[in-house]
Every structure is written in C-alpha cells, then in structure tokens.
C-alpha cells in the first residue's frame, strides 16, 4: 500500500469515524432508563366488580437487579398507560384508601415493608422500609384483606386499568420513575361485570302409602286376623303392616299425621290401645286395636306415642279422630327417600260383638318450607 493510499484510507477512516461519531452523536437517543424490568409481575384482585370496596390486591414481582438498595416499593395505578414516565391518570373512582389501607402477608426478598400513609395517594401506594440490599428474588404482599382495609376498584365496569410497580432506594418513593427506579414493570388489570347467577330448586314432597311390596305395587287393604282375616282367638293379638315412603327438601321438615278411628262394626267398636304404648295382652276379656311405627325410615323420627316396642301398640283416638289428625313421625329437615313401616294390631275379647269391623286410616304429610 502506498503512503498516499494509506493516508487516503486513514483519511477515509477518519472521515467515516467522524461521520459515524456524528451519526451516533446526532441519532443516538437520550440515555436509556436505569431500571431493570421486574419479571413474574402480577396483581391479583379479590374482586373485579366495578366500584367494589375493600378489595384486596395481591402484588407479586421478581427483582432482576441483584443487590439493589431498596428503600421503598411504589405501586401506581393509572387508567391510561403502564409506561413509566408517561403521565398517569388515576382510574375513575379508584381509591387506595391509603389512610386505612393495610398490608398483609409480605413474603419474599423485599422484607420489612410498611405502608407510607404520608406519601401514598388515592392512586399510589408507597411502601417504605429501611434501606437495605435486596438480592434478586420474588416478593409478594397483599393490600387489604378482602373484607376491610382494602382498595376501592374503579367505577367503570369492563374497563382496563394499569399499575406500575417500582422499587426505589429512597424510602418515600420519590424520584424519577424512569431514572431513579431500580426495577420496575407494568401490569394490566380490568374490572368486569359481576355475573348474577341464580338457579331454582323447586319445593318437593314425595309421599306414597302402600300395603304391597313397594310404592309401585300400591295396595290399600290391610286384613287383621288369622289366614281368613278372623280374630279367631281371644287370647291372640293379630298384626299386619302398611308402609309409607317419604322424601322432601323442606328445610322445616315434614310431619306425617295419622287420622282415623278405631275398628268399628256399626255401633260396636274395638277398644283402642290408648295414648301410651300398651303391651299386647293375652287376657280373653280384653279387646285392643293399636298401631306402632315398627320401622322409622332414615331421617324420620317416630312420635313417642307410636314409637312402641315389639308387642306394644297405641292409638290415641282422641287426637287421631280430629280434623287434622296426630303426628306419627316427623323429619327435622330435608330428607332423602326413606321408608317407614306402620304395624297395625287387633285382638278381640270373649264379649267383642260378632261382626265385620273396619276403619280407614289416612296418612297426611305436611312439609314446611
């Protein structure tokens, strides 16, 4: 290479360098922000309803500038932009309620935070701490507990708003967002319509009385006596059964009432067993007619008058023979389908007038909703 060439090249290089320098000088932008971009940043709201009060905001982020000296964490809420340095418009109706706002459940690398009520505003929460080094890591805290001491959401529904999370060395959150913040980042939040959900469960009552194997088989007739339906022995109590199925979602429970009279043949009757459980007697001079709830279905409780043991029956005719009858069983509340068994018993005496004796017993279920 000749000297001229060298000079020429060097000159060109100088010109190029100068030009490049000029270019760099002219087009190079202002110095970039010093903050690192917080990662894994989020704000979880306990309610997205517009205007909701005492909402808890769970703030989480991970610092990326290791060993930064953190004196405060600032969370600034804006309706227009999350971009640091841009003007921030407070969301309509939004309020940090800084005077009463509480911070809970602080975890992570940024420790010792507390709310700076002096420097916080309606749309900015400043959390202060003693300046100290913070290694990189996750941090989270909750503003408000969801029931009190919380934040008031913006009043516009289905509307996005933003938050800027920034760490500062200053303890009061002061400083330029873009220059003085250590780590920072923006998040977006949104209010949303609250969905009103309703579903109706209709009142239900299923009640089936039968004498055959099950409700579907039905049956209404009960014969008391020997195989011919005859009270052939005056020292024997003859029994037979009827059943009822019950199910209801009535919160106040269901009362099953028994209504009816004792066995009668014209003007003659068989003496009812009485209002207390009475043992079945073998005395030939005594006649009896009674009932008992021999099996109470699940969830059902037999009334004490009819919760008689084996070989005992009762029949409180003074109350069964009234307008609405008398309770034989009840449920305390809603009950799934269950079956109760009613045992009927009759015995004649030597002086029980001959004849065909009948009665009709009605079971009535009353559900309270």
């Amino acid at each position, binding site marked *: 290479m000749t000297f001229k060439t060298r000079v020429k090249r060097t000159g060109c290089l100088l010109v190029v360098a100068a030009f490049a320098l000029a270019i760099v000088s002219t087009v190079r932008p202002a110095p970039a*922000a010093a903050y*690192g971009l917080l990662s894994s940043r989020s704000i979880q709201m306990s309610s997205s309803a517009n205007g909701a009060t005492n909402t808890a905001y769970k703030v989480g982020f991970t610092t990326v500038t290791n060993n930064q000296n953190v004196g405060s964490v600032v969370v600034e809420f804006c309706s227009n932009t999350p971009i640091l340095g841009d003007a921030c418009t407070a969301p309509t109706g939004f309020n940090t309620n800084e005077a009463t706002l509480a911070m809970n459940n602080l975890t992570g690398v940024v420790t010792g935070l507390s709310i700076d009520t002096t420097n916080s505003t309606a749309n900015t929460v400043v959390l202060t701490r003693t300046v100290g080094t913070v290694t990189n890591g996750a941090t989270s805290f909750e503003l408000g507990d969801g029931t009190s001491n919380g934040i008031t959401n913006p009043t516009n529904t289905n509307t996005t708003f933003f938050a800027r999370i920034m760490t500062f060395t200053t303890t009061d959150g002061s400083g330029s967002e873009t220059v003085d913040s250590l780590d920072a980042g923006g998040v977006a939040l949104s209010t949303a319509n609250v969905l009103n959900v309703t*579903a109706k469960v209709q009142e239900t009552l299923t009640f089936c009385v039968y004498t055959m194997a099950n409700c579907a088989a039905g049956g209404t*007739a009960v014969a008391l006596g020997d195989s011919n339906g005859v*009270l052939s022995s005056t020292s024997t109590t003859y029994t037979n059964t009827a059943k009822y199925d019950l199910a209801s979602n009535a919160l106040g429970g269901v009362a099953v009432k028994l209504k009816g009279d004792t066995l009668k043949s014209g003007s003659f009757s068989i003496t009812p067993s009485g209002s207390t459980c009475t043992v079945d007697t073998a005395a030939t001079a005594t006649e009896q007619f009674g009932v008992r709830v021999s099996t109470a279905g699940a969830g059902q409780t037999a009334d004490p008058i009819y919760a008689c043991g084996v070989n005992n029956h009762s029949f409180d005719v003074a109350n069964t023979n009234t307008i609405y009858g008398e309770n034989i069983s009840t449920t305390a509340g809603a009950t799934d389908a269950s079956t109760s068994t009613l045992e009927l018993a009759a015995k004649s005496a030597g*002086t029980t007038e001959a004849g065909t004796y009948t009665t009709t017993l009605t079971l009535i279920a*009353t559900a309270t909703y």
Partner: protein
Amino acid sequence: MRRKLRQLNLRIPGLSRPRFLTLTLVLLLAAVVPFVVFGTSSAAMLSFRHLQLSDGTISHAGVKYSFSFNTNTSGPIGSVSFEVCSNYQYENGDPCTIPNGFDASNATLTGQTGITDFNLQTPPTNSRLLVRRPIATAVVPQQLTVEFSNLKNPSDIGSYYVRIQTYASTDGNGPEVDYGVVVFATNDGISISTEVPPYLQFCTGITIDGFNCGTAQGSFISFGELSSRAPRVATSQMLASTNAIYGYSITLAGSTMTAGTNVIPAMSGGISRPGSNQFGLNARANNTPEVGSDADGPGFTSPSNGYQTPNQFKFVNGDIIASSATTDDFRKLTMSYVVNVGSNQPPGRYVATISYICLANF
C-alpha cells in the same frame, strides 16, 4: 440491552394491548361455569310456609286446606292468592295445570289469623283461591294463616303445588309482593278390616274348675237312699260366655224323678219340707238345706225368677233358669238340687234326666 429493554417497555410482553384485553376478558368468562340463568323476581319469598290438609285421600270431598306462612315485606297487603296446580310454576305468570278432579267451587273461608279481614272471592277462578281485603292497609312482616273448607282433592295420587302470592292490590292483580310455593301429596287411605266370629261357650258338669270348660267333669248325681226325715241335696255347675249382642238364655229341660209310674212331684216353688214328696232346684247358695253357691265370674248373668231365691226351689220343664240380655263374659252357675220323700212314697229307683239348653241371640 437497555435500549432493547426500553423498546420492550412500550408494550405488554408477548401481546399487543388489544389482544391482551381480549384474552383477559376471555379468561374471566372461561372461568365461569356454564349454567342457566333465570330471570329473578324482585318479590321476597314467604318463609315457614306449609299447607296442612284435613285429609289427603284422592277425590276426598269436604277437605280443609290450612295455609300458614310468614310474610317478609312491609307494606300494604290487599289480597292473597292460592293457586293449586299439578305442575310447578317457576315464575309468576307461568301456566298452571288444574289438577284432575280438584274442585274449589264450593270452597269457603273458615279461618284466618294475622290479617283477619279477608273475604273469599267467589266463585273461585279455576283452581285459584283469592282472598281480598276491603282496604289494602300496610302491615309488618308476620305470620298469616288462612283456612279453606269444603274443597275436593285431586283424583290422582301424586304431588301438587300451590303458589301463594301476596299483592298490594285488593284484586289479586299487579306485581306480587311476596310469594312462595308449598307442596302437598295425595294418596289412598289404608282400609283395615277384620272379622269377629259369633262366639258361645257353654258347658255343664258336676264340677268345673275356674272358668275353663276343659275342666268340666261328671254327669251323674246320686242322692243315695231317700229319707222322710231329712232332704237329700246335690249340686252341678255350668259355665257360659258369649259375644251375642242380644245375650243368651239357659233353659231347663227334663222331668222330675220317676220310678216307673211312681213320681216324686216337681216343686212349683217353695221351701224344702222333709217328709213331703218334692223335687226342685235353684241356682243360689242355700242354708235350708245347706247346699249350693251363688253365681261366680266376670260376667253378669243372673238366675231367673223362681230359681234366684235362696231356699226356694222349683222344677218346671222349659223354664229359663238364667239369662243375659247382652254379651257376657264367663259366668259360672251352681245348681242346687233338693229331694224330699214322705213315708207314703212308693219304693223304687227314681231317676231324672235333666238337660240345660243355652241359646245365644246374635
């Protein structure tokens, strides 16, 4: 690196702003479980509500329907409606299917508490009972009861629904104030039957232990050798019980003591006279002579005239010696026999065959 960070800071990482907003809304909606949303009434629900029937038997007439419920809204109540349906009405104004056989055309208002100036609008419209007040005055939440009488139950076994609605209007029109549904169930009653057979227990014997015919023993009485100086006596027993509603009677059948053509005269009622010719009986305890016992047992049957007086004896074929006018428990009679002979009574072996016939009247 810093410039790159600055550039990245202009937008949410990975998504443009519109797309991010869209995603947020989609996620919110996706978090909601699908369900059916009903339109809700602004009326409050009646609480502690129930319907009590006086009889749940299908097609039963003359039934009372007693409603009880608590209102929950303060304000004027002018009327209350009770609409009986075989279907469930989810919302006010839903169609109501009138239950088969249900009849409220003859219903009357027979009871009311809480508010006591209701009148029943007659005739009822289909299955809707409407009670109305003259003036819809304001009331506080309270328990109300309303009882209707003379309704006829549906003719099908099953569950039925009654929608209760209160209104500020006095004609059951306009928006409901409070509402609620109650459910009642119909079924068949239990028909119980049994047969008590006709019953008569009667037995005789020389002795019967207790009141058990199984212990009756003996049928032969021997007076031994008759004497003119003293009477000869003997006893037998009989036991009777029946459920015949008209009771029973015991008839004496037989003849006095005879030996061929020789007869010891039957007594027609009188005392025992040693040395005279006489044969008689009664059903009492005697002391002249000392023989017999009074009737015994839980029953009430008593000896009949002629045979019920101590120390008076009689024997007339066909006489009723004891009877009861109604059912009677066990009654044991002891028959006392007395025979006297005079010195002129021809010798011989004197025999009498006596039967007692018990007849029950059912």
